[in-house]
């Protein structure tokens, strides 16, 4: 990941993941610290990700055209409370909600399917940040899902035989069992001026109710202006 963050004025910043932008995944997020006193601070976060395969230039032109009616949206919202316990350690707790959806139309042969699939998720994200050396941070955190649900809203139609067309519509919602599907991560962040490098090891990365149990490495470069 390659992120860029910019302080638009005191206590407020906006950012984007440039690596995602470069391949056509438009994303923007903002953070506003609305309360700060002594060792405590509280901030609000809002983001938006939008992706339409027609802008995904690494796909073939034919594939981009075929999928051009499909849109993927993700809107994360969060409230974060931080406590600086000492000059070398900080505690953070984030309460977040993410709305994600995929909608659009797909056709194959004489069949047409339109609709959407998406999800709602509420999660808690505690994190412990330690600063053992100048310009070095060690972060130990978790993402604990509190509630997760998915919906399917499908409309599809096909010609059964000449003069006869069959179709259907399904609108369903299901709460997912996400108990014990926590994600843990350990990160080391190195800072050189505005440039930051974060190396992460993540255990239990989750997508809806799928859980990857192996530890996954990750790297992130970001600039904070």
């Amino acid at each position, binding site marked *: 990941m390659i992120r860029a963050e910019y302080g638009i004025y005191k206590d407020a910043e906006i950012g984007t993941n440039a690596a995602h932008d470069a391949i056509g995944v438009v994303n923007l997020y903002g953070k506003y610290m609305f309360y700060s006193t002594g060792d405590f601070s509280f901030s609000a976060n809002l983001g938006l990700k939008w992706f339409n395969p027609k802008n995904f230039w690494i796909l073939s032109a034919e594939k981009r055209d075929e999928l051009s009616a499909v849109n993927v949206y993700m809107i994360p919202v969060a409230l974060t409370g931080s406590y600086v316990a000492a000059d070398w350690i900080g505690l953070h707790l984030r309460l977040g909600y993410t709305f994600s959806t995929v909608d659009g139309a*797909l056709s*194959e*042969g004489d*069949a047409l*399917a339109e609709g959407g699939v998406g999800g709602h998720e509420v999660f808690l994200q505690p994190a412990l940040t330690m600063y053992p050396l100048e310009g070095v941070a060690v972060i130990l955190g978790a993402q604990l899902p509190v509630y997760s649900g*998915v919906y*399917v809203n*499908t409309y*599809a*139609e*096909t010609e*059964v*035989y*000449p*003069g*006869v*067309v*069959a*179709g*259907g*519509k*399904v*609108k*369903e*919602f*299901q709460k997912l069992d996400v108990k014990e599907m926590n994600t843990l991560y350990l990160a080391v962040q190195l800072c050189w001026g505005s440039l930051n490098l974060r190396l992460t090891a993540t255990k239990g990365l989750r997508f809806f109710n799928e859980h990857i149990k192996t530890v996954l490495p990750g790297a992130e470069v970001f600039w904070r202006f």
Partner: protein
Amino acid sequence: MKIFFVLLIAAVFATCEKEEGIGEPPVDFNGIKASFSSPTGVYDQSTEKLLMKEIEELSHLYEVFEKIYNIYPDLKKLLSGAASQVSGALSTVSSPLTTYGYIKYSCPGADMKNPALDFKKGMVKIESDELKIENNTVSFNGYLKMLFEECLIEGDLLKGVSHILVESDGAVLDFELEDFTGETLFADFRVSMIVSAEKTSFLAYVGGYSFVVDFSYSSDGITASIKASNGQWSCEITQDSVKCDF
């Protein structure tokens, strides 16, 4: 990707609550069935003329249905309580699925032997919350709705909605015709019907009293019988006239 494959994906969420569909029937089907079993009208000379006119008009409506059935035997099977086979489009469905669904039948083309493939002669659409797909078969059980959307059948334009209860031996229909223009003219007309494999029965009203009129096809053409509270009679229907053995 065929429609039922899409629906199968959705069936993964089979335990979920359904949020939309055609809802509850707005008619009392049991009341309609009871009316068919005990007609209140009395046949006598004073009711004969009006009754003959009713039979003539209903026979025309019956003929229109038969013209549609000639092209879509599936539709009659469906209304007769039999599951409707709708070809290999269902081959991707391996487990039973119940959902909201519909089938649109294009109204007949100019030759009256084949459907108008472009749907420009209107359509008959059947909708149900209980569309069942199992073993490559579609069946509609319970309550369904049949909509006639500007369906042009030879000289007749048919527009309206029918609420239908499909049972194992046939279907009970409450048919609200907004418009039926052509050789016979109906507007804002409501008729109750029972369809089975052997016959189609209508409830005819004369002076506020009910008569049951059964129609069926035989080698001689359309035959009808009238059931009143004081007896039952057979009728012969030709293109020009209705003759009953009163």
